[in-house]
């Protein structure tokens, strides 16, 4: 019985297939390389989400800030929520912070222009400007609207998965989705 208890508390050997909980336990025990596996596992979703709402030039910077914040506060992560949910909340905070800093520096008026000048293959200035405009519109939506759009479009979750994640039924989720698209449309029409 005591052995079982001991094994429960001891992290399994480090492997890329280990669950988030096991990797976090390893990290807390001082094996910092466990974070590499967490990073590789969760980067795609974080990156897609950031890329969806942040201008191209700032995507990597904001993504890195999210993981730096994660590594700094991982020691206090209690596991009340799933790591992916925790990271999603952290991502939203950092994106909001990015826009707050920009507003403070009075950069928003410059942002579309500078991003439009970005030399990214296959992107014309007009499409880059459109992208930045749409990203700002998304960021200005109420949080629940923005979230359902990001979960469906950026993270490509199915409606039933979104319903499960947000503790809603499927009908309510689809209704929220339609209201969110309508709010975005209204915002773009302004």
């Amino acid at each position, binding site marked *: 019985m005591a052995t079982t208890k001991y094994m429960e508390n001891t992290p399994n050997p480090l492997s890329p297939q280990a669950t988030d909980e096991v990797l976090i336990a390893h990290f807390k025990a001082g094996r910092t390389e466990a974070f590499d596996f967490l990073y590789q596992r969760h*980067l795609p979703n974080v990156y897609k989400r950031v890329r969806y709402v942040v201008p191209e030039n700032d995507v990597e910077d904001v993504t890195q800030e999210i993981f730096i914040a994660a*590594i700094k506060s991982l020691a206090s992560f209690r596991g009340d929520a799933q790591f992916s949910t925790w990271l999603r909340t952290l991502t939203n905070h950092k994106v909001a912070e990015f826009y707050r800093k920009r507003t403070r520096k009075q950069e928003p008026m410059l942002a579309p222009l500078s991003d439009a000048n970005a030399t990214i293959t296959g992107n014309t200035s007009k499409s880059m400007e459109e*992208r930045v405009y749409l990203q700002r519109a998304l960021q200005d939506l109420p949080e629940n609207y923005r979230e359902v759009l990001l979960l469906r*479009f950026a993270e490509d979750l199915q409606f039933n998965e979104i319903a499960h994640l947000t503790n809603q039924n499927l009908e309510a989720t*689809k209704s929220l989705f*339609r209201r969110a698209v309508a709010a975005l*449309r209204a915002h*773009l029409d302004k």
Partner: protein
Amino acid sequence: MSQHDINKDNQLAEFADKVLQGKMNQPASSSDLDLLRLEETILHLKQTLPTDSPDAAKTKQMLVRLKARMKREEETAEVPFWKKLFDFQSNPQVGMLLVIVAVLILAVITVPSLELGGSSNPTTGTANNNTNFLIGGGIVGVLLLVYWIFRRK
């Protein structure tokens, strides 16, 4: 919520699914103007905003850059002003200044009592001198303690 609204919710959700699967690239509801505008918005989102993930090589590069950035940030971490001030190894003048202040305080408090050798009321004078001496000693003690603590660090 009316049945009409539920139908619209389902239609729009289905449309979004098809667009994201690449099975639809133009609006489907030509009859319902409201729904048509929402479908156009979904197509606009899909066409304008990128949804591709970083590939394995980019993931690796980003991890390397993240580690380099963290190392850089650790090295250039801001040291609080008071820690810089009391860092006696790189700032020995502050340590010296503390000692001089301690000696001055001690002198100011003890010299008058030595010169006067007591007051007309010996009991009161002695009590005052003792109090002054204790306060002075206390301040000097605290200063020395601060010096000792920061020197250890």
